[in-house]
Each structure stands twice: as C-alpha cells, then as structure tokens.
C-alpha cells in the first residue's frame, strides 16, 4: 500500500515536470516567433523610410530576456522560462504594433512625397516646354525681321 502511494506521488510529480517542460518549450518557441515577427514588421517600416532604431533597441531588450529564458531552460528552471518568455512575447507584440504604425506613417509620407515630386516635375516640364516654345517663337520672329531688314546690295559689273 505504502509502495503504491509512493509510486503514485512519483508519477504525479513526473507528470507535472513533463507538462512544465512542454509548456516552457512552447512558450520559448512562441516568444522567439513573436520577436522574429516583430523584426520583420520593423524591417518593413525601415524599407518605407521610418527611423527604426528605437524599435531595434526594444527588440534587443526582448532578446536579452530570451537569452535568460534559454539559459533557464537548459538548467531546468521552467517557471523562469515561462516568465521571461511571456515578458519577451509582450515586448514583441508591442514592437510589432508600433512598427506597423510607423510603417503606415512612413508609407503615407512617402506617397505624399512621391505625388509632390511628380506634380512638381510635370508642372516644371510644362512650364519649361511652354517657355521654350514662346521664347523660340519670339526669337524666330526677331531673327526673320532682322534678315528681312537687310537690303541686298547690287553691285554693278563694269566689265
């Protein structure tokens, strides 16, 4: 009977340890995925022209927590792993939200810049074209007038 009680206690504790490790491993994976996803959103924001140095600093903070979680996982401190990983996941989610927001702002300002540049160029080309055409007409008129004002000289041939 005593043996049975002892064996059941041992089984229960093993079962809990198993769940703890599995939970720790999955929360570590989730945190790693969350950080990578936040990093991808950061790169997208950077590509749109946003300044992402603040986001990268926060990602490094998340990465430091992940490093602690990995060390704790190796030494069997699964509670610590879950704690660090959930902190890291939280940072990753916030960075992703901020990166998406930054991307939206950078993209908006970039497309505004694009349309301004296009409108400026089209208007500029039109003004230059029209100016050149008018100047050319004026120049041509003056040139022809000058040519017509020139009187041909008749020279007599006395031979």
């Amino acid at each position: 009977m005593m043996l049975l009680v002892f064996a059941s206690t041992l089984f229960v504790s093993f079962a809990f340890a198993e769940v703890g490790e599995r939970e720790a491993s999955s929360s570590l994976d989730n945190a790693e995925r969350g950080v990578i996803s936040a990093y991808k959103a950061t790169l997208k924001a950077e590509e749109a022209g946003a300044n992402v140095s603040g986001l990268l600093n926060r990602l490094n903070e998340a990465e430091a927590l992940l490093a602690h979680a990995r060390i704790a996982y190796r030494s069997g401190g699964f509670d610590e792993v879950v704690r660090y990983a959930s902190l890291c996941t939280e940072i990753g989610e916030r960075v992703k939200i901020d990166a998406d927001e930054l991307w939206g702002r950078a993209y908006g300002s970039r497309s505004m810049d694009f349309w301004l540049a296009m409108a400026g160029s089209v208007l500029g080309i039109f003004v230059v074209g029209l100016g050149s055409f008018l100047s050319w007409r004026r120049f041509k008129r003056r040139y022809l007038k000058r040519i017509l004002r020139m009187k041909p000289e008749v020279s007599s041939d006395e031979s």
Partner: protein
Amino acid sequence: MNLERYRIVFATGSLVLMFIVAAPSIGLYVSFPRGEPFSEFWILGSNHLAEDYPFNIRVNETYSVFVGVGNHMGVSSLYLIYVKFRNQTQPLPDVTTSQPSPLAPLHEFRAFVANDAAWETLLAFRISEVSHYDNSVVLRRMSINDAVLEVNASATWNLAHKGFYFQLFLELWRLDEMSQSFQYHGRFVGIWLNVTSF
C-alpha cells in the same frame, strides 16, 4: 548661324532644363550604386583595446573580453554569434569555402543592429573544472556570462610552445531574409588560451 542651327540649340537647352526639373521624380525610380555591404566583427581586451587579451588562464578565475558587431549591410540586421571552443587539432571555420566550424556551439548571443550602427557586449568566462593527466588536460566545465556549460575538450602538451592550448572563438551568423534562417556570415574571431595553472 542659320535658323535651323538656332532651333537645335533651343531644343537641346529645353530638354536639359526639362531633365533638371524632372530630376526629383527620376530619383525616385533610379537607384544609385552604393558601396559593397559588409559586417565588422571584433574582439577586444578588457580595456577596450586590441591588447591585453587573456592568455594564461587559471581555473576559477573570471576573464573578460568585449565582442562587437558593426552593420554596414544597408539594412538593419539580426546577428547570431556562436561561441565555440576547440583545441589545436579541431577545425576552425573554412575561410576559402566560407563554411562554419562543425563544432557545436557552447553559447550564443543575438543582436539586432541598425544599419551603420554597432553593437557590443561583454563576454566574461571562467574555467571551473579541469582534469589533469600526465600529458594532457581535459577541460570539463566553464561558464560564460553566468551560464554554466559542459565543455569536455582535451589538449595535449604542446612541446614547442610549452602549454595546453585551447581557442575560444566566435562565429558571426546573420538572419537571411529570403530563407528566414541564420546563415554563416564568413567572419570569425578568437583568442588562444593556455591552461597551465590548475
């Protein structure tokens, strides 16, 4: 100069002016060539200089170096630094084929580095367990930044240089955008350690 020649001068001048006016829009489409992208990777002594590297190592004493990465890849990058340990016969990364060392990493650092920025960290290590035999030394355990690691690396007595030599080296890996996996970035740095005082 006749009228036809004047016409050509006018047309050319107008086209040049139009090109100058359109330059901001053209700049949005044309990408100008920039320098070759690269990453810097360094290891410095405890005084932040390329000197005073730990060499003669005592058991249970902590030594520190600084490890840094400079990003000039044109975009922000996620770097992975593997810390590896070897004796004089074990392989280093292959410089010609740009392959990493097949040795298993003891420890790793990951860093997000903005373009044209640098990242640096302290690497403190301590050899905590060594077994000494007649002609060889087995390094059983060491710690790197408070993480205790099983090493189990052995070295035989080097007659020429009088010591048991190990090398602590670091490989630089970078997250590849296309494959979404870390790829060896063809850079490694290391320091030689002589473990003679037990």
